[in-house]
């Protein structure tokens, strides 16, 4: 019940395309869903996050879509650029228990010029 399943494991998209990364969770008590971006040799960095009371959140070219009934959320990258090539992790958090941050397994995204 504590798992967050992330797919695909890897993704290759042409520049300008819209990569979509999906995550699914089981524990309905999760109430905060961040996405982290990790470049090679660096630690992950927070990219965008959403609470379950909204269905969509946009920040620049990055959008999270959230489906509470299906217990799924996804990251979309509009007008993708080669500089977006990185590993992306979704996560789910129990606000009341900060130690329980459950990360997905990661998606290695490559944007081809």
């Amino acid at each position, binding site marked *: 019940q504590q798992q967050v399943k992330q797919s695909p494991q890897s993704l290759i998209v042409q520049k300008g395309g819209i990569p979509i990364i999906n995550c699914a969770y089981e524990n309905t008590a999760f109430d905060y869903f961040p996405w982290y971006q990790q470049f090679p040799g660096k*630690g*992950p960095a*927070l990219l965008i996050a959403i609470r379950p009371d909204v269905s969509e959140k946009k920040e620049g070219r990055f959008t999270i879509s959230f489906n509470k009934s299906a217990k799924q959320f996804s990251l979309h990258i509009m007008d993708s650029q080669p500089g977006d090539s990185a590993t992306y992790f979704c996560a789910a*958090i129990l*606000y009341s228990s900060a130690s329980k941050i459950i990360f*997905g397994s990661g998606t290695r995204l490559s944007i081809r010029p």
Partner: protein
Amino acid sequence: GAGVSQSPSNKVTEKGKDVELRCDPISGHTALYWYRQSLGQGLEFLIYFQGNSAPDKSGLPSDRFSAERTGGSVSTLTIQRTQQEDSAVYLCASSLAQGASPLHFGNGTRLTVT
């Protein structure tokens, strides 16, 4: 301001030796986490410190692993009698408070056990 600092950035050690990995969190951050990331893999939770509370050690893989946080600031992760399967990147993160505060990660220590 300064981010989370980890040292050393790379460590090569022989099997059976002990190693210490250091993490300097962002000043004022009360929460500190250690994660392990094997090559091309996800983030494996190891241990969590919050203020003066007892740490959550539920992710430590064996009793060879231990961690401490002195004075609510610097943390040290110690691995005793290292094994080849301990080879990984060890990431430290800190956050301002509990709940939805974002994690700020260091760049990690790449540990190689030969």
